[in-house]
């Protein structure tokens, strides 16, 4: 918190981030920036390094080299909770709610981690904060249910709810539509669009491209750890490299 945010620097700046696991280069000198309030899509084949990039940004794994700056401050090397406290939250592909806790308690834990309210004195406040978030993600009818008994579609919303309980200014969503179908995608997509409309900066990993492309203005494409393309959804759909590595001809046609 010591460095004053610069007005010129991007909200999030990724500079030459490389991550190696033994002989495998999961991320290879990835650089890009995200402006405040921007909604960015992050796509690429399975194993391209998308989740690894989220892990680096949120402090779950340190990069082998390179730098990440958030609101003008270098966050590379900070622990995940310290990064979360600065306003950078993320969700996980596989949802693991705290067992034995109700939905509203699972949400409250997200708020406690960032001291949104005082745990000892303000459990009523926790409930109120959880209710506010539950309204935004459509979980209000299930607040007292054991979180582990929720069906998959609602678990995906709980995952987003827990992250926004930390009151982030940047949220990384890892496949928010995975395992959802039809109408369920429209509902979660509606939640995300409202978060974006409220000014939250978002980076979204997703393979369900038609749903993704309605949410984002800009798309970043990773392949074998490298950034191979960057542009508007239209530009990405027309990009030959992206067609070959990721979309396939049929996939590109579905997107058009």
């Amino acid at each position, binding site marked *: 918190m010591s460095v004053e945010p610069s007005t010129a620097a991007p909200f999030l700046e990724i500079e030459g981030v490389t991550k190696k696991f033994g002989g495998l280069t999961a991320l290879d000198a990835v650089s890009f920036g995200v402006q405040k309030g921007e909604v960015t899509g992050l796509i690429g084949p399975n194993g391209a390094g998308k989740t690894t990039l989220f892990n680096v940004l949120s402090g779950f794994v340190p990069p082998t080299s390179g730098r990440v700056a958030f609101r003008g401050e270098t966050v590379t090397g900070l622990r995940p909770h310290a990064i979360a406290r600065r306003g950078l939250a993320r969700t996980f592909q596989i949802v693991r709610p705290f067992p034995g806790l109700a939905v509203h308690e699972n949400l409250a834990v997200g708020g406690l981690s960032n001291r949104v309210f005082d745990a000892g004195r303000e459990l009523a406040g926790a409930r109120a904060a959880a209710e506010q978030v539950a309204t935004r993600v459509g979980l209000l009818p299930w607040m007292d249910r054991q979180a582990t008994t929720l*069906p998959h579609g609602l678990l995906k919303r709980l995952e987003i709810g827990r992250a926004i309980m930390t009151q982030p200014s940047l949220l990384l969503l890892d496949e928010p539509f995975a395992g959802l179908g039809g109408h369920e995608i429209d509902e979660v997509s509606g939640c995300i669009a409202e978060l974006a409309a409220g000014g939250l900066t978002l980076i979204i990993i997703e393979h369900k491209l038609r749903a993704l492309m309605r949410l984002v203005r800009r798309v970043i494409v990773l392949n074998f750890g490298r950034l191979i393309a960057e542009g508007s959804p239209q530009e990405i759909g027309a990009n030959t490299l992206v067609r070959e590595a990721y979309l396939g001809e049929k996939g590109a046609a579905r997107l058009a």
Partner: protein
Amino acid sequence: MLEVRNLSVHYQGAIAVDGVSLAVARGEAVSIIGPNGAGKTSLLRAISGLVPYAGDVRYGGTSLLGMRPDRIVRAGLVHCPQAGELFGEMTVEENLELGAYTIRDAQRTRDAMERVHALFPQLWDRRSQLATTLSGGERQMLAIGRSLMSQPRLLMMDEPSLGLSPLMRDRIQDSIQRIHQEWNLSIILVEQDSALALEVAQRVYILDSGHLVKEAAPETIAADATLREVYLGVG
């Protein structure tokens, strides 16, 4: 070939599947679609003998009610579970070999292995790698390949497109169509990707809250504005 009669599954008082009846003819491919929690996976698990149920499942005229899962596999009805559930710390080849556990004939196992490698050449290239090191698409190929090793006549697949990139999703679709058309297997496909479900199937069942709400040809469902709105969406 397969006939499900008035099948219900209960979990601790909650009803997951409520009186579902459906049928699959020899060589037919049917899809089951519907929202999360509709009972699709529970229905497959019941047919495979993995969860107790009320009602009856008849396969080639014989009742499968109360039959052990391994007997059901030996009878030719194989279930490829969601997310593969591979043996992660074993190699690709060992995973395939385990798929043939019920086949006690080395020659038949080798033949099955060859056919699986012809369908998924990447599995041959990766035969000595651990399953955990595979990409999402390769894992799905291995899961399907392992199911085929037991030489089923009816293959039940639970969300093979889950988490796959567009390109891999299309490859998996091609391989499902080959398994159906070239291998002449009957197929039950449970899918959230409704485009995939409609493209590979001759008939589609829609399940919602444990009930069967519609059975129709894919073209009929695609042409129905209400069904499209409620069950297909834009994803």
